[in-house]
């Protein structure tokens, strides 16, 4: 655009000012305006096909009584209005109560998992910031959990968490004598911690990777200047590293949140059908509600509610973090001089 514009300018100027000018240019402008959209169209249609159409179908399904009697030709399933939603949010009845419980478990689990993933990932990335012998090897090693196929990794954890001859009980009970008896990890209340462990183990390398990449973009001079001013390690992390990583963290935390909240593979491989109540994550819960009890309408209604919740969370999060960022940018100038004076 910028290269063609100046070349065209003189040609226009030569034209005598008159009625012919407008109409002659219009087809070209029309083409220029429409062509980008035309070129976008295939991508748009694919996007519609892959994302939006199934979503719309899901929403439609949530208003139908789609049970085993109708799945063969689900166009014939009767409309049920808001019944599926009513069942889902009737928290006094078992179905709604179970959904609410599963939702709360998922929220607590996700917050803990994201916090731990971020903390461990950032700490590891900071430790790996300076070059030392074997850094490359360690970095590669840290990324292994992220690179392993989920199923293989989680099934290994299932073996380790077994009650009778699992590695975890062997270490905790037989060797360290930390627990009174062998604990159950795959059933009962401990299953929450088993799930959290696997989730963090699987998720932190991603945080590590992203933070590591973010760290490369912080100018060395900032640290050098800070060092000259006598800033210690902790001050450098707090005043330079973390503020510089803010945009990276903003995306990282959001992505980790959405992935963890929606994670299906980890709980499903870990617990199979009928997850323990303490670790009944919402994605598996909805799967059970639709696939196992063959009531796809209620399952869809639950999915739509989940989608709405995640939309709200994402929207609020983005609004808050971007407002905070613009606010901070406005304040940066004066604050920096203040800091100088402090040091």
């Amino acid at each position: 655009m910028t290269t063609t514009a100046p070349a065209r300018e003189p040609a226009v100027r030569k034209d005598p000012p008159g009625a012919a000018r407008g109409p002659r240019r219009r087809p070209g402008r029309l083409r220029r305006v429409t062509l980008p959209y035309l070129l976008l169209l295939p991508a748009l249609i694919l996007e519609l096909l892959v994302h939006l159409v199934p979503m719309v179908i899901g929403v439609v399904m949530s208003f139908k009584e789609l049970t085993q009697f109708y799945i063969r030709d689900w166009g014939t399933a009767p409309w049920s209005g808001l019944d599926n939603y009513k069942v889902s949010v009737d928290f006094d009845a078992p179905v709604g109560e179970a959904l609410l419980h599963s939702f709360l478990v998922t929220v607590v689990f996700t917050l803990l998992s994201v916090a731990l993933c971020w903390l461990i990932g950032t700490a590891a990335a900071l430790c790996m910031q300076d070059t030392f012998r074997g850094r490359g090897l360690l970095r590669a090693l840290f990324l292994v959990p992220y690179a392993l196929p989920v199923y293989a990794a989680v099934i290994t954890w299932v073996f380790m968490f077994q009650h009778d001859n699992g590695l975890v009980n062997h270490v905790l009970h037989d060797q360290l004598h930390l627990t009174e008896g062998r604990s159950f990890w795959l059933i009962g209340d401990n299953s929450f911690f088993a799930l959290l462990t696997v989730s963090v183990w699987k998720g932190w390398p991603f945080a590590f990777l992203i933070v590591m990449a973010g760290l490369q973009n912080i100018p060395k001079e900032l640290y050098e200047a800070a060092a000259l001013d006598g800033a210690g390690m902790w001050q450098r992390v707090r005043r330079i590293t973390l503020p510089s990583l803010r945009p990276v963290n903003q995306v990282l935390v959001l992505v980790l949140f959405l992935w963890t909240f929606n994670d299906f593979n980890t709980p499903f491989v870990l617990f199979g059908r009928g997850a323990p109540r303490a670790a009944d994550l919402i994605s598996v819960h909805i799967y059970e509600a639709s696939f196992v009890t063959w009531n796809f309408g209620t399952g869809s209604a639950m999915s739509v509610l989940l989608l709405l919740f995640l939309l709200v969370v994402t929207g609020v999060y983005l609004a808050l973090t971007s407002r905070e960022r613009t606010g901070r940018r406005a304040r940066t100038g004066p604050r920096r001089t203040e800091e100088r004076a402090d040091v």
Partner: protein
Amino acid sequence: MRRTRVAAAAAVTVSLLTAVTACGGGSSTSGGSDDSPKTLTYWASNQGASIQVDKKVLQPELDKFEKQTGIKVKLEVVPWSDLLNRILTATTSGQGPDVLNIGNTWSASLQATGALLPWDAKNLAKIGGKDRFVDSALGSTGAEGKDPAAVPLYSMSYALYYNKQIFADAGISQPPATWEELVADGKKIKAKGKNPLGAEGANLSENIHHVFVFAKQHGADFFTADGKPDFTNDKAVAAVKQYVDLMAKDKAIPAGNAEYAQNQSVSDFAKGKTAMLLWQSAAANLKSQGMAEDAYGVAPVPVQSGTPGTGTQVNSMVAGINMAVFKNTHNLDGATSFVKFMTSDAEQKVLNKAYSSIPPVKAAQSDPAFNSGATAVLKQTLATSAAALPQVADESQFETTVGTAVKELFADAAGGRSVTTASVKAKLDKAQQQMPKK
């Protein structure tokens, strides 16, 4: 230049749009056809120790069928964990196999979807008629009063497998015939440092099979006569409690079994860690795990008192595999003749011997292989003291909800929490509330 670009974009758009509408075509609701008479797709369930074993067993038979009819059968052995989901997906999309195996307890549920070809008198006549099959097996082929949704292929029943050596060491001369005896024997076995009884506490289907039998022995049913769930009646609660108490109170089932769902209890038994196991047709499985056939004995599953029979003396569900034809098949005639082939006397003998199951075909049962040792016990149970699981459309949901309730009760027992009549009733009540409302 630009015009061609616009034209190209338009062409891509149009072709994509046609793709969209083609996708929208979806399922047809019409019946089967004979569009491709020379091929068949067959989804077999996993009957042997592994999928490889199944392929080895089935492929030669499929080759035989191809030689006889010229129809090539494409075999896929589907693991149990996937089979029901695969069938549901096939039902929804209309794209599925021509012939498939189903767990016989799913018959009524799948029948309700309308995805399977009904075996009316005309279709049954093509495979030799209803009378060729054993009654108990036919009782698990669909809801009462409707044409069967499938025909029986393999039959199985539960039996008590016991380790002869452990029994001898504990001074037990014969296998327990009642639950009371089993619990008493369990104490002797525990004194010798072995676990009395194995169970799959986290396997929903296994849980259902056992509590169903206990319910029968208590004179209870989980469904009313008109097919409504009735999980919380006192007898059903007592039945579930008796099963879970084998771990919670009697300590016959070790706490660790509460998390078993991948047949670990069979491995434990094969390795001589547990003395007893309630299982269906375990012979082939035990053999593949290296347990010699003379190391264990097979006895009928215990009852409350007396000897196994009908009514409250039932000691097994009618377990088994049915064979169904997918309604949307492209080779209806071929599919029917394949079912005829697989249920023929000769094939029934070959297949059921390979899987240590019982042929549901009367004529094949006379083979001496099915009348000796362990198989004779299974056959006797099937013939005299086995009952079919409720043939209602909500059977799958029943398995999930009540199976999960029992799993949670086992988890409570394993975690040292008390299992009381009230706690059992509360769990069953929650299960019942989650059943579909009609």
